[in-house]
């Protein structure tokens, strides 16, 4: 199949306007004849559900949690970017576009990213109108701060809880549509399968997590907004239920998967401290605005940090990147941390940690200013570690945080399956090989509030769709298969727990598919994953029965999918013969150990086609064409 990204013609700045004009419209009276399924209620899913319902479509919305308000967008701390240029410091749509393309190391589409930058301003307007309590200046106007690798102040924020406030805004819009009778929300449902009729997405099968029953839902189009797959690595900053299952099952039905190996490792997280640990906690990147990253000069220096004099400290980011200093992008900061820890200069009980020190900022601005800016983060740090960051420097280490990869989508956010749209972190589209801080919230809301409402109309108006309801045999077939899968998991009755398998998979991926990758390591990972998957299906222990609330069974299904998906993650990493953004292949680096892109042969979007269990997937390439920006070596020196 030839991949067509359907990027509109014309100058970059006019593409989206032109496209919206060219898209067919659904007559207002006809919208009520269409049913749309939305899976996931994070920023992308909740905003899409609400907006589509406002337009008149009938929406069914599904989530895993007990309420749509709990989706993991809620945990985003730092902020949301927009090109408002309120501080007058030189920002513009063009600069936000350029920063995002460059930040992603030139592995995203120009047209998508430009649209994102354009829409960024509408998002802020919308959220303010909903009553999102953004931070304000003394005069009552909106406050901005600089964030994660940006040299302008374009980040809007609500203390350290921006994701929470934006999600509650989208959730409230969704609840309003539930009250209006335009959306029906199905909580505690897990998507088990995508149902195709004549090759188009026409519904889903979900498992009711309370009763264990399989339920069929038919629609004219299906939207997946199911988030990222970082939990493949077991330990991550994701929520415990975050999974790859929804998009992986769609992939197995024909949706191509792009860039599975583009996984963002966030530099400022609380370090790992025990084998029982279930998740890692992010410390907002905004801390790098005032905190200074350092390690002892001498390997193995075990003195307490306050006893190490200035002259014996290495402020590594300030040394290596004098112009960006502690604010370099996430991938660069994470690799620098790994590099010094590998040299034995890491601190703390494990040696896999570095300091983030606020002493100078406290001396300069006073403790009250620092407390006002970061009080809740410092409190969270102390709660988890039992140490007071006002007195001793924080210890941080990189952790799996966000996945740039996801299902391939065209400019309309439609996957390779007609009628299947993918939004937010679940798609691959806007962040290239590295996402900049405060861009995830922007993309989720852009996709949901401002892109899909137009593009789904174009699909529905321009496609002849036969009537399909839940009585269609495809639903029954799918339910039979899904029940067989569950019965198989329960029948193994082995001796190893689900979490035990998951933890081992995480170790393999972190070791060989983490911050630094090489050919032989990735080959080894493939072998190990294969072996682990075989063991899983012979020896996993899943208790309980299918027809009840069974959290072990839920996890088993997700881990089974991670075990299949992990192989594609590694395969994708091996196929890309360059280093770019988060993907660092040791064979491709500059003398200074910076990522070395290969623009001649690797300037493409990788899109993987599933060919059946046990068969090698096919790699399709969508060339990336840059007409408006010059491909440059990223430099933050």
């Amino acid at each position, binding site marked *: 199949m030839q991949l067509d990204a359907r990027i509109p013609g014309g100058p970059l700045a006019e593409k989206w306007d032109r496209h919206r004009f060219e898209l067919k419209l659904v007559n207002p009276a006809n919208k009520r004849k269409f049913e749309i399924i939305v899976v996931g209620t994070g920023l992308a899913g909740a905003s899409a559900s609400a907006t589509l319902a406002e337009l008149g479509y009938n929406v069914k919305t599904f989530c895993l949690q007990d309420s749509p308000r709990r989706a993991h967008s809620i945990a985003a701390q730092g902020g949301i970017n927009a090109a408002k240029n309120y501080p007058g410091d030189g920002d513009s749509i063009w600069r936000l576009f350029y920063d995002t393309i460059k930040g992603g190391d030139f592995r995203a589409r120009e047209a998508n990213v430009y649209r994102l930058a354009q829409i960024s301003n509408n998002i802020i307007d919308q959220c303010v109108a909903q009553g999102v309590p953004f931070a304000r200046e003394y005069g009552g106007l909106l406050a901005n701060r600089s964030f994660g690798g940006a040299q302008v102040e374009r980040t809007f924020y609500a203390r350290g809880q921006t994701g929470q406030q934006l999600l509650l805004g989208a959730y409230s819009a969704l609840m309003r549509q539930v009250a209006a009778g335009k959306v029906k929300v199905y909580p505690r449902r897990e998507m088990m399968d995508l149902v195709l009729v004549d090759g188009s997405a026409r519904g889903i099968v979900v498992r009711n997590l309370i009763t264990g029953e399989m339920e069929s839902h038919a629609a004219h189009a299906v939207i997946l907004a199911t988030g990222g797959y970082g939990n493949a690595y077991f330990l991550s900053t994701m929520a415990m239920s975050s999974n790859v299952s929804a998009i992986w099952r769609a992939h197995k039905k024909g949706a191509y998967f792009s860039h599975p190996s583009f996984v963002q490792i966030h530099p400022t997280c609380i370090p790992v401290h025990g084998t029982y*640990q279930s998740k890692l906690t992010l410390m907002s990147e905004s801390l790098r605005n005032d905190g200074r990253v350092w390690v002892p000069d001498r390997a193995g220096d075990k003195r307490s940090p306050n006893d190490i004099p200035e002259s014996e400290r290495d402020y590594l980011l300030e040394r290596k990147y004098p112009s960006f200093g502690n604010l370099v992008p996430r991938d660069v900061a994470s690799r620098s941390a790994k590099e010094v820890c590998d040299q034995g200069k890491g601190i703390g009980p494990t040696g896999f940690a570095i300091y983030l020190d606020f002493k100078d900022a406290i001396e300069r601005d006073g403790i009250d200013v620092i407390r006002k800016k970061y009080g809740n983060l410092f409190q969270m740090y102390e709660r988890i570690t039992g140490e007071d960051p006002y007195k001793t420097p924080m210890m941080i280490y990189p952790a799996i945080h966000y996945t740039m990869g996801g299902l391939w989508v065209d400019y309309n956010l439609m996957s390779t399956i007609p009628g299947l749209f993918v939004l937010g972190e679940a798609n691959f589209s806007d962040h290239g090989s590295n996402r900049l801080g405060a861009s995830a919230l922007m993309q989720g809301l852009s996709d949901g509030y401002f892109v899909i409402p137009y593009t789904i109309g174009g699909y529905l108006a321009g496609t002849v769709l036969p009537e399909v309801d839940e009585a269609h045999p495809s639903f029954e077939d799918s339910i039979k298969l899904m029940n067989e899968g569950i019965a198989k998991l329960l029948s193994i009755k082995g001796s190893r727990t689900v979490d035990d398998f998951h933890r081992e998979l995480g170790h393999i991926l972190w070791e060989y598919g983490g911050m630094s990758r090489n050919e032989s390591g990735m080959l080894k990972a493939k072998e190990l994953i294969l072996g682990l998957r075989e063991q899983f299906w012979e020896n996993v222990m899943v208790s309980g029965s299918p027809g009840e609330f069974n959290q072990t069974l839920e996890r088993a299904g997700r881990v089974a999918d991670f075990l299949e998906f992990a192989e594609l993650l590694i395969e994708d990493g091996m196929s890309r013969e360059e280093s770019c953004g988060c993907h660092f292949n040791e064979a491709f680096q500059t003398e200074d150990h910076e990522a070395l892109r290969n623009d001649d042969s690797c300037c493409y979007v990788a899109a993987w086609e599933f060919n059946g269990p046990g068969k090698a997937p096919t790699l399709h390439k969508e060339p990336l064409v840059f007409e408006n920006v010059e491909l440059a070596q990223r430099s933050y020196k």
Partner: protein
Amino acid sequence: MSENINLTLKIWRQKGPNDKGHLETHEARDISTDMSFLEMLDVVNEQLTVEGKDPVSFDHDCREGICGMCGTVINGLAHGPERGTTLCQLHMRHFKDGDTIVIEPWRARPFRIIKDLVVDRSSFDEIIQAGGYVSVNTGQAPEANSIPVPPEWAELAMDAAACIGCGACVAACPNASAMLFVGAKISQLALLPQGKPEAAKRALSMLRKMDELDFGNCSNETECEAVCPKEISITNIARFNREFLVASFGSSEK
């Protein structure tokens, strides 16, 4: 520094909404004091699974204190002994070797028990549906800075908006009242100019819905404020009461 402790747990077990529940005793051995409470329960569940027993069901998701999904009553206190802390952020260093810990679900009329420690809080969604929003469709919004908001109001609105909807306030209240939850949402929107046009309608409608769903009344016990993991102040209830009075006597809303 971290150490390992042993604990006796008395955990509420209940197969389904209509079954009779009971407290079951389990020993938790070699628990690192660096663990979170939920990680301790993970360890117990791994052990139960290996022994071929049914692991304890409990709700949880983000494990960083913001999603509001987790929450149980620990020794009679919603979310446990630490102030301003969700269960997932409660660490075992706050317990001592040899402690007995009683773990129970939220108990309140409007929160049906689903299984073990898992309860149904969909009534909170229903209350928000009754008016916990500003009626603005996507695309209708004016330029963001055309609506200045004094920073002190924005701060107070943010204090109220920090609610995570966990339900601890209801579980702690002897009347199972949801006044702190509702008051927080009413306050957030009443403090901001965006929320003013619908303020009267919202106050009346949300209160009516709360009554309809069988939540009790507020009798100023202040237990809700004491257990709230986000330390939402009961001044939000006072503000809600003012809004309600204004709406009842000073507006044409019914």
